């Protein structure tokens, strides 16, 4: 709701600013930057296709009825709707690094201007003639490109504000080894992942969007559908998008990111969040780009046994001097609570660490806000297929519960998949439990699981299977099927 209000407010303010100020400046070339178009682009990039097209439609309609308008009603609505949708799709396909977002913004701005001219031509708008287009279009596109960073970035900032986070408080800050402690980092992880797009963080300023669920202290959502992705910023941990097909929950990675990881390893970089089992629904690669501190904090996802799949003993940056048991791959000291019936694909966020720390942080971690002096190290990785699953939204932790994971409102059924689970739980429902509250259309990206059943295929090797196996942690064909084929170009 807050986000909706933010979108509406930003659109109205920039629309009026556009008409009263920007269009009156006599800029070279005869064109003017289209702030409304850029807002639609930015909201599409951050909000996804649905939010993008809805924003575009209403913003375009507003521009069509705002007083000096003399064009046919609906022209801008049509164009901006398409542009918003395209931006949402493109952001899914390209990830959310700053460079790619800006690239998408540039392309979308140019496409929007061209599309508007085309629609005007088709409708026989007397103002839109070839000479006018030849003069106005290039300058408009150029000005759009020049202005786009100044619009897209504040919209992002405002989005993080609307999500209720001070920028960089959880995800960015803690991942950067800043002031927040491990627990906070876990929340960041949770939140970022819960945002459905599976990005661990962003630049600090961008962390607010995904961090929202994290604030709610749930490890919600597909931690995954995130593809480990090298981020540009030194202090950022990013889960690019990833994912797979609907319902898959992984910190997955597509081929590209795997290459990036390999490349980084080759360069001597540290791979901190190791790609995991690679199974759909499992943890996979993520990189942290900060230089390694003296004593990194490790978040290990791993387990000894198949099916255990804990997002394990998280040494989430306790205060200096405080040690937490390591041994991520070891047997859990306690029986994992969430272990699905043996070997079901779900895996669990279990293990000894299978309960959340106070405040619903990641298992094993405790909240030491402001105490981290070392950045995190995340090891995701089960050794085997089916392992290492930071599973779906089952992991939401009620805030403040001492063993949050143990007391969800509903019993989390991690992957009750019918088709794909290695061994499904008997009697598991066909539909995925949804643990996230739906908050309107603009919150849809946080709804990690679609209604469709996740499909985990065991078999079906594809031509990328070999490549996947050669990659770090890419051991099963499933990630590839999801991550590349369906996740990005579905």
């Amino acid at each position: 709701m807050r986000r909706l209000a933010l979108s509406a407010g930003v659109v109205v303010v920039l629309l009026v600013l556009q008409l009263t100020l920007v269009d009156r400046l006599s800029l070279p070339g005869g064109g003017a930057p289209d702030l409304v178009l850029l807002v639609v682009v930015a909201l599409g990039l951050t909000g996804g296709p649905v939010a993008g097209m809805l924003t575009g439609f209403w913003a375009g309609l507003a521009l069509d009825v705002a007083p000096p308008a003399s064009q046919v009603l609906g022209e801008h609505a049509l164009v901006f709707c398409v542009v918003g949708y395209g931006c949402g799709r493109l952001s899914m396909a390209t990830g959310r690094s700053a460079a790619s977002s800006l690239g998408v913004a540039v392309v979308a701005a140019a496409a929007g201007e061209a599309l508007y001219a085309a629609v005007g031509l088709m409708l026989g708008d007397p103002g839109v003639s070839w000479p006018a287009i030849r003069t106005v279009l290039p300058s408009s596109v150029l000005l759009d490109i020049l202005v786009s960073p100044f619009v897209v970035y504040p919209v992002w900032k405002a989005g993080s504000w609307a999500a209720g986070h001070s920028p960089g408080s959880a995800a960015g800050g803690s991942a950067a080894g800043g002031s927040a402690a491990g627990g906070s980092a876990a929340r960041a992880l949770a939140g970022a992942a819960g945002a459905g797009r599976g990005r661990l963080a962003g630049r600090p300023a961008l962390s607010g969007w995904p961090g929202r669920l994290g604030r709610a202290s749930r490890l919600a959502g597909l931690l995954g559908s995130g593809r480990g992705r090298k981020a540009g910023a030194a202090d950022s941990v990013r889960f690019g998008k990833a994912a797979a097909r609907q319902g898959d929950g992984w910190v997955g990675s597509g081929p590209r990111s795997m290459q990036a990881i390999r490349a980084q390893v080759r360069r001597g970089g540290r791979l901190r969040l190791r790609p995991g089992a690679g199974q759909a629904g499992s943890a996979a690669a993520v990189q942290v780009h900060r230089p390694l501190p003296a004593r990194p904090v490790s978040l290990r996802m791993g387990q000894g046994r198949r099916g255990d799949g804990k997002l394990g003993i998280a040494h989430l940056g306790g205060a200096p001097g405080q040690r937490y048991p390591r041994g991520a791959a070891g047997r859990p000291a306690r029986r994992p609570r969430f272990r699905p019936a043996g070997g079901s694909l779900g895996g669990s966020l279990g293990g000894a660490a299978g309960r959340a720390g106070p405040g619903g942080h990641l298992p094993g971690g405790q909240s030491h806000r402001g105490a981290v002096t070392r950045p995190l190290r995340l090891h995701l990785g089960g050794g085997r297929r089916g392992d290492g699953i930071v599973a779906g939204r089952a992991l939401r932790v009620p805030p403040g519960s001492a063993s949050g994971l143990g007391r969800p409102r509903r019993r989390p059924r991690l992957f009750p998949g019918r088709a794909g689970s290695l061994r499904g739980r008997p009697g598991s429902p066909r539909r995925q439990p949804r643990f996230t509250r739906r908050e309107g259309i603009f919150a849809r990206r946080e709804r990690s699981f679609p209604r469709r059943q996740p499909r985990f295929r065991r078999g079906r090797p594809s031509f990328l299977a070999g490549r996947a196996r050669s990659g770090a942690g890419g051991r099963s064909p499933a990630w590839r099927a999801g991550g590349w084929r369906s996740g990005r170009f579905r």
Partner: protein
Amino acid sequence: MRDTRRTRLVLSILLIAALALITLDYRDGSAAPLRGLRQFGGSVFGSAERGFAAVTQPVIRFFGGSAGGGPGPQVAALETQVTRLRAQLSREQLSRAQYAQLRRLLQVAGRGGYRIVAADVIAVGQGYSESVTLDAGSQDGIRPQETVLNGSGLVGTVTAVSAQACTVLLASDPASVVGIQLAGSGQIGWVTGTGKGQAGSGLLKLQVLGSGAALRPGEQLVTSASVHDRPYVPGVPVGVISKVQGSVGSLTTSALVRPFADLTALGVVGIVIAPPRRNPRFSVLPPSPSARPAPTVTVTVTPSPFPSGGPSAGAGRRR
């Protein structure tokens, strides 16, 4: 969210809605739902633009754009006055012969025939259209299809009115057609805008009925009369012919016209409120007697040192 069926459903719904709007507006722009929509948008965004204009005016002035109002209130007042005088002048320039006829016929001075509402440009159209928003609306008595001019000449005509703002289609918009009369020859024609980005930017295109009309650069145009003075009152100077275009074999003679008013940098403009139609006999009333004080003539006589001798002596010398 991903590209689910729902996403596509929403997308198709929105696209269909947009296309339906376009279709409705294309067929009949004054259809009831669209008119309501436009009025709603006009009132909401018009008010918002009015508010914003107060803030953005200094910025525009700083960038040397179309500075509305000039650097100060005095200048704004003076511009308003110039506009008003221009309207008066154009009324009086209205084809002197006709004017004399009218005067003789009806004994109408026409004083107070036009009322001017001064307004300021607060917003400029987005995209390819050439239109502006003024900060005067139906509350100020503005109605659609009223002439807008400024101190230099014709600006455009009002196309849409909300409570606090109105939209003016500039004469430079390709959609605007202004009926004109050549000041010298009295030829009748029309002027359309050329739109943004034309090579001769800011010029208007003149077409004169009658292929034999001899157009010369430098000829001036005024608006010709319209029915009920809508959308253009007669006699407003439009521009001057800057280039005559070859028109071999065409029915009309065309030329490019440079408008008197700088339509890219508009500030204070005046909206001509046509004489009220409620009292049609207003125009036939005799002129109201001017209470002008009679000038006092003061004759100062200076005693000359050479009273009447000098000139005659000179004359005698010349003789």
